[in-house]
């Protein structure tokens, strides 16, 4: 009796795991996008003014 319940519960847990992984993780995708875009566009945190990427001379703020 108890064993049956255990098996049933385990099956439930496993099904839940599979379900979670099937759905597209939209929030995670956005985070990944943010990270990659920041890298590609060289946007630094706290840097409101994005860089003119072509410039090779380091900009110096006074």
């Amino acid at each position: 009796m108890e064993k049956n319940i255990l098996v049933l519960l385990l099956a439930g847990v496993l099904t839940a795991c599979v379900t979670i992984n099937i759905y597209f993780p939209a929030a995670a995708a956005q985070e990944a996008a943010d990270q990659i875009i920041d890298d590609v566009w060289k946007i630094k945190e706290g840097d409101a003014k994005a860089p003119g990427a072509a410039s090779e001379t380091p900009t110096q703020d006074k």
Partner: protein
Amino acid sequence: MKQTWIQTWIKFQRLIKLLVAIMVVFTIHLAYSAPNLEIDTPAINALKSSMQARHGQLAPFYGSGAIGLTSNGLIAVRDAKALPLKDRQGINALVASENTDRSKLYQEIAVANGHPEWGSSIQDAFAGRWIDKAQTGWYYQAAGGWTQK
């Protein structure tokens, strides 16, 4: 009679303990399986640096409005007339290579996470973020056509 009642009670208690244990396992499982997409693979990093290098060439064209961000996470020539003659030839190739890299990037992220079928969802996620992060003055494709940020 009393004996069976106690036995049932003990069994019930065991069952509760079991349930709690399973809930704990499940919670831990949730915490770990929850969201972090793998984006640190050699293929993805290579595409990133290729795009990073190209951005130096693209940035002035975003600024002048010659190139705009499309609603599907790619870029397109918006106004070739905004370009000096000398740049008009090269820009199509530049846009094409950027779009190839972007498409590969979306697909690579999907593959790196074991779900090649996620490619278009990832592309959608990027589309919104590119536009959100675009600089003021850059053009992007909205429902009503090209819009300036």
